[in-house]
């Protein structure tokens, strides 16, 4: 790439053509280089610098879990038959002997009991899938709270959010394949949700299931989605995601020497590549450990699918839990008034299943909110600059508080999916658990917002305190004239950099448009902007710092000199400013 811009002399060309490698590795390298241009690839990617921080590795975990899931899934396809044709079970699991069931369930049982290593691979596939969505979720939370989604990375954030939604779809279609009672109940809920959609709901459900639920079509269709369509989309989007990461360069935490224009870290080759390669095997090891020692989805318990039985403890996998939970906390009646009603229509009335439709609102709001957040935040703050340095979460108090509120909202819905187990395991009344969850659904995010914002501001004030007066050393000194004071240890320049290098702009107020008018939308924006910025802790300025140093009875011998001092004994009690 960069090589093509350079000018070469005739002699250099000849030297390159006549080059004869001497070592074995050299011969292989030269063979590859002369045919596919390995040098330029290594030059471009091998020198790519990535910053090192443990929170940057969740995306890697997601990628590796995905690879592990694809490999173990390929193994499963060799035996699994996604057919709803009935058969009589004759495998080695005694308690299901002779029962009528679909080929899908029979082959899942065969994989579990009669294929060597089949149960391990099934469990590896399932644990891998749980880890895949988990890692994507934690990665997204990390990106959100550090502000890594800001310009120029908004589109990659959207790609990531799409990957998460696809991950949910991949997981749910896989969960539904074995055709036992547990997954059948899950599909029945999906069927109910589809049918609740006014007018078109029944049509969509009939198209999906090929007639009335459960029909004979849905497992093969879900299988096609699960092993072909969704993984293909995931692969393409993962490629786009990684390409954009390389193009944008990785973000980094603020620190000495780290600016908007550089990346401080290690190049991919050789250190980072070795670490990443090794990390793949760590992820594989952890997932194999889980797969080998912890049973997951014991599908032989649930029995062949039959629409009549419903079993206690029927839950979806964790990432679909919040769909289930929000349905569980939605009341069907308020007092004696049913929330489901019939809309009178000329053809006799349509039932409106409010208790199923209303729970879709928070789910839609949260998912859509994830997609539009980067633009929403830019619109509110008016910040259209590029950001390659991450925010420490405390330095963006409103975003952090809002994010925590949304996480709490999600957690309440997610937790509600295990309301029955909370009741049995903590000896509570199931009804009370539901009432508390309903209260937490509305109050939880508000309390979380207020608390988080206060905690962030308090941490920022603490940072100011440390930057200006140093850490309390825990040593009390008595001066000759009997005055007590505590020793303070000033932060070193590395720490000081982290403590003071952030922005806390003031609210900007409404701005008139080109015609000089302040529109209603602009007023809303200004209001949100005020909420966003009005509580703020300003970073320590140079003047303040110098004054604080002077205040401590020391001669202001220049910022640099003061910073480089490891320890300074304060001449005044800590609370005098």
């Amino acid at each position, binding site marked *: 790439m960069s090589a093509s811009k350079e000018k070469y002399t005739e002699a250099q060309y000849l030297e390159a053509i006549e080059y004869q490698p001497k070592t074995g590795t050299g011969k292989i390298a030269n063979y590859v280089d002369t045919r596919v241009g390995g040098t330029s690839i290594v030059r471009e990617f091998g020198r790519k610098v990535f910053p*090192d*921080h443990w929170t940057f590795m969740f995306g890697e975990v997601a990628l590796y879990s995905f690879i592990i899931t694809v490999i173990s899934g390929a193994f499963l396809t060799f035996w699994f038959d996604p057919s709803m044709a009935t058969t009589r079970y004759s495998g080695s699991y005694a308690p299901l002997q002779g029962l009528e069931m679909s080929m899908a369930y029979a082959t899942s049982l065969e994989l579990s009991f009669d294929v060597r290593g089949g149960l391990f691979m099934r469990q590896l596939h399932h*644990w891998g899938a*749980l880890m895949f969505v988990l890692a994507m979720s934690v990665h997204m939370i990390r990106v959100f709270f550090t502000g890594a989604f800001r310009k120029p990375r908004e589109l990659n954030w959207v790609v990531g959010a799409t990957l998460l939604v696809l991950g949910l779809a991949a997981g749910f279609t896989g969960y539904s394949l074995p055709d036992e*009672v547990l997954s059948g109940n899950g599909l029945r809920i999906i069927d109910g949700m589809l049918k609740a959609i006014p007018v078109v709901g029944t049509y969509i459900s009939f198209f999906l299931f090929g007639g009335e639920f459960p029909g004979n079509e849905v497992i093969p269709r879900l299988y096609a989605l699960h092993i072909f369509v969704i993984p293909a989309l995931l692969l393409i989007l993962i490629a786009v995601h990684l390409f954009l990461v390389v193009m944008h360069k990785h973000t980094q935490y603020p620190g000495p020497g780290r600016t908007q224009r550089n990346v401080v870290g290690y190049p991919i080759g050789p250190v980072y590549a070795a670490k990443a390669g090794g990390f793949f095997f*760590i992820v594989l090891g952890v997932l194999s450990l889980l797969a080998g020692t912890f*049973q997951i989805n*014991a599908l032989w318990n649930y029995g062949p699918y039959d629409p009549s039985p419903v079993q*206690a403890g029927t*839950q979806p996998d964790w990432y679909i839990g919040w769909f289930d939970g929000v349905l569980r906390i939605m009341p069907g009646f308020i007092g004696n008034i049913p929330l489901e009603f019939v809309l009178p229509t000329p053809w006799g009335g349509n039932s409106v299943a409010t208790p199923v439709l209303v729970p879709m609102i928070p789910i839609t709001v949260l998912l859509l909110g994830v997609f539009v957040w980067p633009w929403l935040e830019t619109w509110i703050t008016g910040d259209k600059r590029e950001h390659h340095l991450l925010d420490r979460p405390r330095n963006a108090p409103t975003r952090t508080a809002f994010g925590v509120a949304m996480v709490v909202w999600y957690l309440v819905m997610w937790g509600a999916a295990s309301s029955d187990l909370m009741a049995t395991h903590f000896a509570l009344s199931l009804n009370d658990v539901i009432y508390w969850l309903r209260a937490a659904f509305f109050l939880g995010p508000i309390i979380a917002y207020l608390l988080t914002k206060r905690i962030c501001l308090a941490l920022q004030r603490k940072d100011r305190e440390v930057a200006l007066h140093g850490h309390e050393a825990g040593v009390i000194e008595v001066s000759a004239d009997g005055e007590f004071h505590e020793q303070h240890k000033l932060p070193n320049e590395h720490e000081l950099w982290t403590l003071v290098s952030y922005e806390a702009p003031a609210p900007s107020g409404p701005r008139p448009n080109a015609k000089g008018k302040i529109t209603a939308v602009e007023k809303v924006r200004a209001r949100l902007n005020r909420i966003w910025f009005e509580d703020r802790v300003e970073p320590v300025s140079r003047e303040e710092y110098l004054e604080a140093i002077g205040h401590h009875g020391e001669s202001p011998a220049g910022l640099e000199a003061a910073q480089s001092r490891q320890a300074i004994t304060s001449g005044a009690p800590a609370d005098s400013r």
Partner: protein
Amino acid sequence: MKALSQKRRHPFAFVALLLLGLLVTGGLYAAATTVNQAQASNTPDGFSSEQVDEGERLFVANCASCHGMNAEGSDAGPSLVGVGAASVEFQVGTGRMPMQMSGPQAQQKPPQFNEEQTTQLAAYVASLGAGPGIPDDEWLDVDEGDPARGGELFRINCAMCHNAAGAGGALTEGKYAPSLHGVDEVHIYTAMTTGPQNMPVFNDANIPPEDKRDIIAFLKTYEQQGSPGGFSLGFLGPVSEGLLIWTLGLALLIGSMVWLTSRSS
């Protein structure tokens, strides 16, 4: 057919139809109840009068404060007339009675009476009125049962409260269906015939003794097989799996991430 359609407007046609209807329902009911009774009393009350007397003494000393001096019931406890020996076998044999404390339902605890005393109490309660008896050993012999059929019956009749793996589940207002792991055969059987706490009664017309034996055989087979895939995580399904991946799984990976990135700095 023509004669019938002509006579359908006869003044007595309605009376005739009503009589026919009553006869059919009455006859069916009589047939159904005799089936129940015939099956329910298939265990002979082979108790001696000594056992009954001894049982009454135990009852007066331990149970009468709630159930009344003659087991007629009080505000604190129901009448025991007609609950049968099976109820005593279940409630006293599993330690639920005498009740440790009042609450949504009686908690299981180590039994307070030995086998002999439990039988004596059962003899006394059985003497008060006819009720489900203690099953014969043949209905508890799991080797005779068919676990596959029992599993199917279990999933249709029991799993909605007790969980597909018999791990138990929540009911309303703090009540719950307990775990069935490690429960004696006779207690599974008597629970079905008497319907303790919030459990419905599965009498011999609903589930014949052979089928009850199949269900017990399924539960015992299930208990013996353990969990083929490793630690069972309480047989609770996706919730405990989700908890494990978010705790142990995530902790192991974060640990290795911190380790991998700590070397450079």
